[in-house]
């Protein structure tokens, strides 16, 4: 293999490190900038004076968030939504993926279901038909409108399937010979083996439903019912666009107060915190989960 002591590889390693560190900084610096902006005075922000450290340090923006009752209401809605979505997704995808990895002898209609799944992954009903379905099920303005349309993430099913296929057949056969039922095989053999990929799938589910703003925009007809990302999106109005559209003076004043970039930055920071907390716990699984799923026997 490579001789790590040779000058050539040293140079190569240094170059690779520089590139990787550069990429890392490119991801990190904008976030630090947002945090700095959120702690700066609004005039300093509008003067573009804030870099990586806050200027005119103030926590006023955070104080205003704490006082904003709608923010917390939306925050709570999002937390509930994420929890429900996660449970529902796992309850559906894990058994589904297990069933789909059974042999054709055990599950004759497997290919039909597989094709249906792939079809559903590639094509969807489009916004208006989906909206009408949700409306006619009387789900509008209910939290289920944000959960049920995404209850079966096909991509996650396929990811889990690939992982289940990688579990040695012998394990499963041994369990069956010992008298285990299919459910026992699933719960006691497959699920413990599949922890990394279940963590991966969970992370997708959490991040996806936390970050989704469009569903809230369509299915929630009142601002009070908006999940957090929809609420933040609705606050982020572009003053310039409004000026170009010749809005009246009162509307401009109102938005100028809001487009207060440090307040927006603070909202972004607060909204990202839950993901930042969850991510480190799942990250180690995420890497191994993706890799292990990719290697098949």
């Amino acid at each position, binding site marked *: 293999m490579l001789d790590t002591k040779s000058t050539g590889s040293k140079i190569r390693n240094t170059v690779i490190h520089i590139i990787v560190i550069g990429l890392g900084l490119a991801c990190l610096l904008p976030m630090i900038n947002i945090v700095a902006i959120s702690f700066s005075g*609004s*005039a*300093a922000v*509008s*003067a*573009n*004076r804030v870099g990586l450290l806050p200027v005119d340090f103030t926590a006023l923006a955070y104080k205003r968030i704490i006082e904003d*009752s709608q923010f917390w209401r939306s925050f709570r809605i999002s937390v509930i939504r994420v929890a429900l979505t996660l449970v529902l997704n796992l309850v559906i995808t894990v058994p589904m993926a297990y069933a789909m990895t059974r042999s054709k002898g055990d599950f004759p209609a497997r290919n039909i279901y597989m094709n249906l799944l792939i079809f559903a992954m590639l094509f969807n009903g*489009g*916004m*208006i038909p989906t*909206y*009408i379905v949700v*409306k006619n099920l009387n789900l509008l303005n209910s939290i289920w409108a944000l959960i049920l349309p995404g209850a079966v993430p096909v991509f996650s099913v396929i990811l889990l399937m690939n992982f289940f296929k990688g579990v040695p057949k012998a394990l499963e056969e041994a369990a069956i010979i010992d008298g285990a039922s299919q459910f026992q095989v699933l719960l006691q053999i497959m699920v413990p083996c599949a922890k990394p990929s279940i963590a991966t799938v969970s992370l997708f589910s959490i991040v996806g439903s936390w970050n989704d703003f*469009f569903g809230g*925009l*369509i299915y929630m*007809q*009142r*601002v*009070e019912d908006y999940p957090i990302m929809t609420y933040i999106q*609705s*606050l982020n*109005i572009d*003053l*310039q666009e409004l*000026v*170009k*559209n*010749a809005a*009246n*003076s*009162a*509307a*401009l*004043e*109102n*938005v*100028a*107060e*809001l487009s207060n970039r440090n307040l927006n930055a603070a909202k972004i920071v607060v909204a990202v915190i839950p993901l930042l907390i969850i991510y480190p716990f799942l990250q180690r699984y995420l890497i191994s989960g993706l890799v292990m799923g990719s290697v098949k026997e």
Partner: protein
Amino acid sequence: MRKTFLKKAAAVTLAMSTVLSMTACGGSDSGSTKKESAPAAAPGERDTVTITMGRQTTANPKFPEGDNYEDNAYIRMVEQELNVDIVDQFEANNGDDYNRQVSLALSAGSLPDIMKVASKDELTELYENELIADLTDVYENYASDYIKSIYDSFDGRALADVTYDGRLMAIPATASDAGPGMFWVRSDWADTLGLTIDADGDRCITLDEVKEITQAFIDGNPEKVSKMVGMSFDPSLTATSSDNANMINTIAYTLGAYPRHWYENENGEIVYGSTTDEMKQALSLVRDWYQEGIIDEQLGTRTWDDITSLLVNGECGVLFGSWHVADWLLNNVYTLNNKAEFEPYVVVNSEGKVNCTHYKATGEYVVVSAAFEHPEIAIQILNLIYDDMVNSAELLEKYPEVDSYLREGVDGTARPYNIEVKSSTYLLSEYQELKAALDGDAAKEDISSAEERTNYDAIKAYEGGNGEVTGWCKIHSRCKGVDMLTYLNDNDMYHWITPIYPQTTTTMKTNWANLQTLEAESFIKIVTGTDDLDESFNTFVSSWKSQGGDTIASEIKEQTGKQ
């Protein structure tokens, strides 16, 4: 990337399904719009009517704790006075979000009883598919004299906009003229540098003086910054209204060019202002200034926020903007630099007049569903909010919480209709009252508008030395900005152009976005480039015309011919 795609996909699906579903609804609903309006019972004598509404909201409404759009002081007053129950079928922020909800309601076939629509195109579609009620009779019978007088102050332009085949199909919002884009100058700098602006005191300057002032600021560098920028503009350069900030509109207007406006020229032809010879002159002037360094050398890449920071950091001391620009843009300058003072001037044409375009009198509408049994309630709400609430002290005594809403400046979007219905000269008359009170000729209580009473307090407190930014802003926007509008009006200094505000034509639907991009890109290239001016402008005009401009012009001609 994904977001843009989603947005585009959503827009396309929406557009298609709206069209499809509307054609489908058209048949079944036909005839219902022609329903005779029988004399309706007084609110107290009938059962409570439930009204479903589509409400356009804003992101920062400042409700008192516990109140929201569906349940606030205005709504409670309307519900009690008119014996109705208002239920919001949907609420969404202005812009795409709201329009999407309207389209979704349309395609799902469940129109609310009363809703706002934000474009004439939507209104026309609703009318053509017979989904909205004819309000001619209820307006005639129920609208108060005051409301009628407001609409009449627009010389018929407001009501004509919502009249189809002689029938009134919507309640229009009113939009008063915005006035010219003024030239705002850091007057504290002028004092420091000993610069005399407008020596004859007529508040008017010429384009040459604009250039001189800017040059003087560049040379003087009053705040000793590392690099002065003369004046800066937004990369799109021109805008759709007379008074937009950070645009070259004022320069163009002064030279007789009205970019992004359709109007009839002396020969009776319909022209698009951006393609005229005058526009070429305007671009030529801006280009000269750019080459001489009067205009920001980073023009084209400087964003709106960047320009704000130039002003805040004292690198730039002049800008073009509306009378209210101090309220939401220049306030940043004052916050960081309490010595900053601005003074507005108007730029006059060669005849000493101020060229200005009339704003379109409406633009937003409230429509009533054809299926709604009580269209008269729509007018009664109009009376209550835009007449009684403004003019009747007894009403406010009866509803003290409404009075406190008005005083505390809860956003107007909280009212059942998020539209303004004010006379064409409301700004000037409100300012007159404010000025009288400030000058001591009248008492604060004589000011009829709640907003101006708040402004009065802010200005008085600022004059008393509290240094608050609100007072500074209001002095600039009212005592300088609106004062200028009053001055122009009183001295008859306007040269008005009445543009045509066309409905979206067939070719506009397909080509307009491209034409707008072509225009913006060509203009910035002409100004910052070194190519021959005549040649590049002519290239722009000919490609603009061949890419649909000519077709659109003839379509608009047809449209106006029909009306």
